[in-house]
């Protein structure tokens, strides 16, 4: 399974493409691609968002569902979704209203 992530152009904030087709600041609520066709659709959305100057550094990332919550496979993406592991007062983990990913 994959989801689409990027950083917002204006401030670099890590964002994910959501089920309601917005770029959101939390990994929870991301649109999940479960097959090749869905991945290609997300890829096209990412390219369009890059071309429209909404976001930069667009990537499809591997995830799994753990107790119904989205969890990236790579530690790098887990840290992007939460914030620096040495500063739990910063990043999305410090904003529970934004994220439950921490």
């Amino acid at each position, binding site marked *: 399974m994959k989801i689409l992530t990027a950083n917002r152009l204006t401030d670099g904030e890590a964002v994910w493409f959501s089920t309601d087709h917005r770029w959101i600041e939390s990994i929870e609520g991301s649109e999940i691609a479960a097959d090749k066709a869905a991945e290609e659709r997300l890829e096209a959305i990412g390219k369009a968002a890059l071309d429209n*100057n909404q976001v930069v550094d667009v990537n499809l990332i591997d995830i799994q569902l753990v107790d119904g919550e989205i969890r990236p496979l790579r530690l790098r993406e887990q840290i992007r979704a939460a914030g620096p592991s*040495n500063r739990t007062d910063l*990043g999305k983990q410090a904003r529970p209203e934004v994220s439950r990913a921490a």
Partner: protein
Amino acid sequence: MYRYDEFDHDFVKARTAEFADQVERRLAGEITEEQFRPLRLMNGVYLQLHAYMLRVAIPYGTLNSRQLRMLGHIARKYDKGYGHFTTRQNIQYNWPALSDIPAILADLASVEMHAIQTSGNCIRNVTADHFAGAAADEVADPRPYAEILRQWSTVHPEFSYLPRKFKIAVTGAERDRAAIQVHDIGLHLKKNAAGELGFAVYVGGGQGRTPIVAKKIRDFLPEEHLLSYTTAILRVYNLHGRRDNKYKARIKILVHETGVEELSRQVEAEWQELKDGELKLPEADVQAITAYFAPPAFVARPEGDEAVKQARLDSRGFSEWLAQNVTTHKHPDYAAVTISLKGIGEAPGDASDSQMEAVADIAEKYAFDELRVSHEQNLILPHVARADLKAVYDALVEIDLATANSGLISDIIACPGLDYCALANARAIPVAQEISRRFASLERQRDIGELKLKISGCINACGHHHVGHIGILGVEKKGTELYQVTLGGSADENTSIGEIVGRGFGPEEITDAIETVVETYLKVRLDRSEKFIDTYRRLGAAPFKEALYGSEAKAA
């Protein structure tokens, strides 16, 4: 210290305006990311995991209080209340919005600072001994030459698109505190038999995925040839350095593949064309730049000896700090102070906005308004009267920056690692924090003695792990972090590259592994005067392998 002249002010102002316009056009969608990326990198703006990152240049690590106060102000106003001092003597902000960066650069320009050439395939910030101008053992202050190199290399049209980035370091003492032998060019300022100043020139050192110790290609280059000779090296590199493979594009690979004798021949041949031309430094110009770095007017403060003696009796904390963080100065009544940014359990090199402002106040009051950033990620007060040391110590205690661990095992270099960096494969800061906590006892640290521990979160080696007495390299293996340990590296005048000791350790094992290495050293050292690196050089890796891997090591 150096002050901008009219040209510098105009140049930085124009560049700030130019980049502000580029940012505006990017935000308006008039230029693409592909077009913008090289422009932002030329101005020190990276994209990291959580946000953009801005790397601000601190030429040869020298700052005044006004500049440090501004760095604190920027941390508070535009970032998240802290900054990270780096192994290039620079500072990085981890959270700036792209839309705020023009305002940040304008604030920096108001205190004669910028972020130009802190990225890209150009000549990066020239680094120097952090005790330059203060060290008792230097023949001359290396910073005037670093400043000459800065002026020459800034937007140098011929050297702005090199095969790869290019780093130069300068030291003015036999004891190398600037790691010059792991630089593309390392310059050791010295005097010849006639008492004239010149440089031993080292070329082709570096870390990263192919660590190589630089080769000395000249034992004495008269100072007036600094730019002509450096230009000759850069020309040879620019012409022959590989552009087909970024991992083989640094000058160290060219030196290695060409052979040092042939490369030296090419450099000398190029230099013959240049040495008597316009790049030959006029004595008056060298003197004019040197005048900017004239030492402060040190007045005799002989009361310092008695004041220090009394303060040592009164305060054990001061006594320990004095022993560890205070360095001999060229003037007997003064000392250089290392302000450790390695508090126990803290992120190496991080300082808060209020700490930066408070340190600026201390520098202004007690240190002739001068500060340095060390490549070991600490701050330095280069000139403090010994009579004022207790007052400085007390002020540092107030802001939690009086940790007496300079040069000890908890004085760790660590890159930002996977907690911030887009290139990293593993975390570095939490590893440093846990090791620091494990060795929290100052008594234990002092018993262990000088030990340089350096951690990188990927093979690019920003955390200098190759030259740590103990080095730790974080890698990603099967989706999890794994830490390789190297032993026997060193970044001083006896530079060596550490050797991998064996299989790596998981995040939950690495601190125990380091403790095993240290306990082994304590068991096998001749006595307390034999430092870790000397014990390693005497015995090699065997006792450490045995302790870490036991029978597994024997089988191998």
